């Protein structure tokens, strides 16, 4: 049963990847110790009332830079404040180069039971282009270590649609990840975010060149992974039966979560908050700002709708919606839903709506329709 989640943002990286615009700072021993100390303090100070916690997620940055004991301290702090479910999912994001067998044993002892590995590509050339500091060799070693240490629940991230990437090269990535038999796979199309190296160096034409190819790659991924026993349960996520990420499900299913660490986002009592994206300011006073728009009921209902639709099979459920908001979905969005059905963009199921196959990769076109004008 999914109820509530905790997100810990670990903002350190050895170097910045060319596509990444998440908040991160250069690694130093001193600041890591300071971070652990301050986040424990934040957990105590910003304790909120939440149902039983079904997921804790260490994201980043590079959480795998933390040692087992550092993780243990943070989890202990959480346990002091919150009621954590016995079978809670505790995920640590890891970069392949920072994984070793000893470290994984430590993590596991600290309670980590799931590792989300930032693979991104199995081609050394592509990894270099992305600005990753690991090689394909590091990936195989890392997976070996994680499995040897006894963590079976591994997720692998891949990025498709790199400039110059051919369909064959992408398919090669798919074949390899399939052969590794990971129970969970996330596939993201490359996006050029402001403030990234790619944004500065890539010309528009290089992106247009692979525009359609990128969609084809995602379609190909869907086909290939489904054929190989994965369910495409969320736009960017594939899982073997029972290995759907609980943490992500909290986001899509409109469940509350609190985020600790600089830039972390929280969702409490249907309001959205975000911590300041600056290490010192955060460490100083845990500044957390509320997104005032998120108090608006129509905004909340829109979020509910588009988050639900990200779940390709579960979809947007009428009963759940009316239970959440006390009004019927059809009363609020009946006309829009009819329109989207008539376009063939969503499909009406038994008491629910799901994205049509064709629109999966253009889902924003459906999502934005729910927002208040």
């Amino acid at each position: 049963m999914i109820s509530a989640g905790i997100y810990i943002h670990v903002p350190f990286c050895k170097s910045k990847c060319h596509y990444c615009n998440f908040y991160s700072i250069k690694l130093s021993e001193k600041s890591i110790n300071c971070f652990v100390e301050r986040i424990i303090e934040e957990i105590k100070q910003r304790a909120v009332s939440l149902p039983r916690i079904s997921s804790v997620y260490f994201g980043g940055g590079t959480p795998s830079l933390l040692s087992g004991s550092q993780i243990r301290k943070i989890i202990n702090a959480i346990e002091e404040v919150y009621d954590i479910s016995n079978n809670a999912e505790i995920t640590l994001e890891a970069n392949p180069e920072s994984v070793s067998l000893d470290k994984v044993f430590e993590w596991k002892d600290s309670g980590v039971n799931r590792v989300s590995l930032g693979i991104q590509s199995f081609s050394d050339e592509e990894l270099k282009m992305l600005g990753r500091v690991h090689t394909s060799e590091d990936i195989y070693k890392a997976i070996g270590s994680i499995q040897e240490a006894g963590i079976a629940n591994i997720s692998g991230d891949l990025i498709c649609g790199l400039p110059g990437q051919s369909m064959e090269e992408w398919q090669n990535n798919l074949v390899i990840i399939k052969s590794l038999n990971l129970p969970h796979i996330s596939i993201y199309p490359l996006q050029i975010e402001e403030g990234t190296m790619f944004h500065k160096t890539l010309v528009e034409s290089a992106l247009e060149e692979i525009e359609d190819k990128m969609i084809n790659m995602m379609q190909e991924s869907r086909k290939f992974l489904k054929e190989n026993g994965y369910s495409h349960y969320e736009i960017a996520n594939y899982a073997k039966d029972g290995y759907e990420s609980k943490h992500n499900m909290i986001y899509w299913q409109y469940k509350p979560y609190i985020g600790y660490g600089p830039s972390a986002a929280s969702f409490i009592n249907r309001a959205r908050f975000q911590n300041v994206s600056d290490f010192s300011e955060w460490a100083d006073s845990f500044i957390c700002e509320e997104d005032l728009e998120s108090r608006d009921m129509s905004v909340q209902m829109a979020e509910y709708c588009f988050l639900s639709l990200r779940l390709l099979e579960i979809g947007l459920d009428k009963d759940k919606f009316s239970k959440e908001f006390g009004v019927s979905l059809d009363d609020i969005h009946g006309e829009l839903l009819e329109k989207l059905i008539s376009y063939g963009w969503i499909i009406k199921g038994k008491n629910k709506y799901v994205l049509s196959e064709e629109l999966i990769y253009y889902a924003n076109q459906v999502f934005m329709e729910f927002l208040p004008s």
Partner: protein
Amino acid sequence: MEQIRNFSIIAHIDHGKSTLADRILEFTGAIEDREMQDQLLDSMDLERERGITIKLQAVNMSYTAKDGNTYQLNLIDTPGHVDFNYEVSRSLAACEGAILVIDAAQGIEAQTLANLYLALEQDLTIIPVINKIDLPGADPERIKEQIADEIGLDPDDAIEISAKMGIGIEDVIEAVVNRIPEPETGLDDKPLKALIFDSHYDAYRGVIAYVRIVEGRIEARQKIQMMASKERLEVDEVGVFTPLMKVKKSLRAGQVGYVITGAKDINHVRVGDTITSFPNGAEKPLPGYKKVTPMVFCGLYPTQGADYDYLRDALEKLQLNDAALTFEPENSVALGFGFRCGFLGLLHMEIIQERLEREYELDLIATAPGVAYRVLMSDGSIKMVDNPTGMPEGKQREHIEEPFVLATIFTPDEYIGNVMEIARDKRAVYKDMIYSNDGRRVKLVFEIPLAEILYDFFDQLKSKTRGYATFDYEFIGYRKSSLVKLDILVNGEPVDALSTILHEDSAYYKGRQLAQKLRSLLPRKQFAIAIQATIGNKIVARETVAALRKNVLSKCYGGDISRKRKLLEKQKEGKKRMKQVGNVEIPQDAFLAVLSLDDSK
């Protein structure tokens, strides 16, 4: 006084009519050798490019025959294409005889016959001429058999020539002088009756009417009246085309020439009207031309809305000597203000469009051509619908009738199977099949809905008979059909100009195809575009034009939903802005997409 001979040349396209006309003009000295361009009578650029004659012209020549007498010859040109039967009959009405040109290799074709019948209707004397005898494939003897068998003329009367090489030209002119009767004489003193068989508009001189004087005479300063429009005018100038305009003191009965009145309003001098004198005019006008009914319709819209009045002006000017062109204002949600135009056929439509674009420099959007439907309404009344948008709702109507034509196709016998196949796809009803005497050519007769011909019929016929088949059709009436209206919606909004009337059996299939086709034709935007094909309230097909990459997907990570929502808000704002600037612009190709749908199921 010089005797007069008024004659036309009729032929199938490419059989050498214009070349023969040039040679006759050269031979009689009307034009000095090569100083004028080849094929002088085809003076419009468009005609020259397409190798077909569209507008008729009349040239006056003086010729001293072998009998020692000097004759005044008037060669009145006719268009060759089936679409222009109407104009052919107009020019033939001004003649006493016609030269029938037949290609020595190709033999008699559908249009040869169609034009011949028009000439026979007017009781004209026919001079059969076998052209291109210099070509390797020429077989004059076989053609002579055809002349006897298929036309019923005396093959010994046929003259063998090569217009290109200048062989036999004198024989043709002598035949014109000797075989074609002179116009009825002794009518000069009767009240004036002049038939306007063509006209054109000159920016400086106003309307220039091409006339055949049937009775009486006409001269400058004379007061005249148009018998149909009742308009009274004074003659400024009369003359003949030599082929340049040459002023004459007067034109007398039997002569062909021009009349200028200074009239600027094209409605005052209508083709088909009879000019008489005023006062003391004739009592009865000459039999006018029967009003032709346009068979093919399409919407013409200026791409620049400001050109609307200019387009109307241009259409009016074209209509002056093309009574078959009709137009009325129409208003489309998708295209703005334009005109619903009626044409004799597809070629006529293309030519008008090209003339508007070339001569009037208009930038146009043309909608897919359609036919006029006869709708029996529930209340028993009849409504003619020439625009799919105007089709009454299903429950308001009893049934729909569509125009059918009798189609005659000549083809080498090895393509019979292919032609039959096309016919089946086009809902044709087989009527007859006649082999030529030599057994190599076949005449196939079908009844086909006109609307089916508008789609890719010609193209298919040409490609499946390697270009050998020829085709002609005539309207035979309206028949009840199971028809439905297919609408296209783009992002939920109906695009009226994309609506079509289709046969029920193919509507679903074509709806799907059309939606797919549009998907490839519509430009990609920052937002996705939904295309739907509907029949009644039922959606039969839908397609999506994908959005551009920039806005396709954004990952959702670390639970930062606010950021995600803000991106969506920005996207939505962008879409709204695009909508204000005209939503989705639909390219011209899209309006014609319905024409090139594949029929094979």
